[in-house]
């Protein structure tokens, strides 16, 4: 629990002066993600603590080095939570790293992603200037929306110092039900129920079963269970947590793990060279994991055909590109944006794309 923003600012200014590339490190729980980290470590986890917790405003402001577990604990005290259900991928996970990766959990299609809940941030740009964007209110269109831009930028645009996030209350009741279904049928079922007003808050499929999580008032949950049918899955809470944390058996493999983001109803046809066992479908069909040695380019063009894109999530060749390729004009724009925040290209260089 300390404010070390001045020290961090000094470090970034120093790096700017000396042209030193920086590798921004929060809890170091996601070092495996993105391209290989490069540069002098800049440790942010010391910059931690809850700055402003405002339950009746549905807003919390926290320093970037604050652990997710600390935030969850504080919110839980007044019956609230981070709505995007972030995966931790390690006990030390911080909110800064989570925002930089824009990681969201199984609830994402129904509640929104990490970036959706960003309200404001304080950050250091590549020159070490301290900047504040957005704020602690729900609606704010003053100035360009830099806070949301920071989400998912992998630390390449700035060092987050604190973030303000919208929070939501816990639901009163929760139940998980399962139905026997292969992937094709599962995708149909998940999209069918997503098109109804039932309070479904997570859906996924493993090729044998399709899983539905229903949250709401007890009577709404009961009624939804009747509509959806299937059978109760007793250990639902643990299942969704294991999915979120990639602790399910499916994820225990040494093969590269690809993550595809596709339109939720895109038909399931396993890619040539893969079998159904290599796949797991989350986010009601919109997120699909593939563990396979198939070439990234092949996976990419497959995802594009489905109307989406793919990234190499874990393992594989991290010297090469791991995120979806961008069209030349869009890549040029990315470089200009990067330059506008970090003119010397010192913040997490190459962590996202080789040339950013």
């Amino acid at each position: 629990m300390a404010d070390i923003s001045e020290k961090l600012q000094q470090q970034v200014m120093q790096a700017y002066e000396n042209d030193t590339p920086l590798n921004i490190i929060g809890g170091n729980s996601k070092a495996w993600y993105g391209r290989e980290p490069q540069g002098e470590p800049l440790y942010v986890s010391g910059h931690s603590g809850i700055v402003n917790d405002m339950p009746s405003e549905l807003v919390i402001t926290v320093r970037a080095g604050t652990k997710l577990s600390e935030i969850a604990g504080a919110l839980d005290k007044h019956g609230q939570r981070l709505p995007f259900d972030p995966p931790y991928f390690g006990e030390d996970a911080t909110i800064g790293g989570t925002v930089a990766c824009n990681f969201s959990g199984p609830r994402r299609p129904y509640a929104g992603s990490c970036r959706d809940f960003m309200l404001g941030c304080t950050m250091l740009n590549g020159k070490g200037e301290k900047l504040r964007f957005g704020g602690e209110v729900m609606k704010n269109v003053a100035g360009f929306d830099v806070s949301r831009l920071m989400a998912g930028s992998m630390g390449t645009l700035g060092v987050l110092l604190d973030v303000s996030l919208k929070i939501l209350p816990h639901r009163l009741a929760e139940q998980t039900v399962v139905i026997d279904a292969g992937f094709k049928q599962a995708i149909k079922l998940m999209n069918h129920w997503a098109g109804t007003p039932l309070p479904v808050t997570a859906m996924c499929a493993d090729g044998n079963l399709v899983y539905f999580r229903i949250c709401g008032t007890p009577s709404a949950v009961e009624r939804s269970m009747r509509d959806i049918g299937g059978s109760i899955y007793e250990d639902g809470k643990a299942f969704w947590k294991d999915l979120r944390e990639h602790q399910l058996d499916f994820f225990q493999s040494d093969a590269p793990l690809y993550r595809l983001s596709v339109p939720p109803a895109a038909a399931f046809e396993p890619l040539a060279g893969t079998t159904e066992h290599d796949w797991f479908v989350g986010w009601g069909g919109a997120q699909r994991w593939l563990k396979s040695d198939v070439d990234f380019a092949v996976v990419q063009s497959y995802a594009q055909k489905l109307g989406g894109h793919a990234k190499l999530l874990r393992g594989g060749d991290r010297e090469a590109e791991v995120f979806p390729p961008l069209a030349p004009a869009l890549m040029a724009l990315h470089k200009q944006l990067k330059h506008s925040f970090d003119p010397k290209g010192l913040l997490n260089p190459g962590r996202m794309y080789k040339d950013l």
Partner: protein
Amino acid sequence: MPAQLLSSLAKLLPESALLTSEEALRPYECDGLSVYRGLPFAVALPETMEQAQSIIQLCKQLNTPVIARGAGTGLAGGAMPTKDAVVLSLAKFNQIIEVDVDNRTATVQPGVRNLAISEAVVEHGLYYAPDPSSQIACTIGGNVAENSGGVHCLKYGLTVHNVLGLKFLTMDGELIELGGKALDNAGYDVLALLHGSEGLLGVIVEVTVKLLPKPEMAQVCMAMFDDIEKAGQAVCDVIAAGIVPAGLEMMDSLAIQAAEAYAQVGYPTDVAAIVLCEVDGTAHGVNDYIEKVEAVLTGAGAVETRISQNEEQRLQFWAGRKAAFPAVGRLAPDYYCMDGTIPKARLAEVLKQIAAWSDAFGLPVANVFHAGDGNMHPLILYDANKAGELEKTEAFGKKILELCVQVGGTITGEHGVGVEKLDAMCVQFGKTELEQFFAIKDAFDDKRLLNPGKAVPTLHRCAELGRMHVHNGELPHPELDRF
């Protein structure tokens, strides 16, 4: 140069798609904030992507500003023309390109009206959630450019939360595609950055929106209060009770009286405030929550509560709120709509201060709020024909915005900065943030030709104004002379 611009434009567009006579330009001289006016050099109404692209390229080549325009309902002067500029109207980009029921998306051209999307998909039990009060007229392109909200955004989010994909033209005329029907897009979140960018970063030419299933049921609890502070607290209590209402709105006595006189919906006119709280979802969930809402509002001191018993009554409860702007419009020759957002806990305090200023300025104020998200719309009543009254109104408005920033809020929740709130931006942001905004602008538009002079004030302007944005205890713009 003007002659060259004109003749080149004429080559790119059919005669009917290029307006240049004063008479034809008149309807474009302002947006919904009509106190700011100006005629453009020309208005171009392209019908095809190629036309739009070549107009932009021509303008870049001739250093001519380009001002994108949707329906012109903006309330901050964002689409207001300047005399050297070409207004690029997207009015003819008005086609719904595709409705994808399976993926629950609609892909539309930017000139499609907000409400037209929901109308087009109602047969599938779907709708597009963001519902600005102007939704019969405003366009989806304008909604993206302003990141518009509506009565239901507390639960369903703003425009940025409901758009999956965009295509836009850069000032080089390059077509860039972002996202699609998947839930997230690759690279930086340029999609989010374009939301609320007020036409400064690119011209939006296609939008893919997320469609939601229509809730099975919705119910409103209307609660009357004899004290506005109690009403403000009641709003906080609803949220603190763990309820996420679909809408949570509030009106003060002047707004209530105006709405009742205008719409005759049965609002009691002798109360200090009305809170409207809507819950929606499945029938079971709604039944559970509406009772809880009523209990909380009663506990907070409501003198009376009513729960809508059917759809007709629900709409009736809302009708007064929805008519609030035109209703207030009948109370005085003109009104000036503010748009600050504040933490809800500061509502009572801010209202008291506004009332005190209202007395001091001798200008009545009616208050209408998106209370659930702290977005206030104080409507200052004035008469533009009375000498000095507009200036007085603007001075009053600025004080309100400064107060919003002081209590930890923002100068604009959903209407945008446009030309109207440029000075207030100097209060909210310091030099480094403004410089970063310009750096972002330059990344997209190095010649600063897209809607120049809007949304972000120059450092010079802020210095001239002498606005003291105190940032980390430092004086703003120490490098610039003070006048």
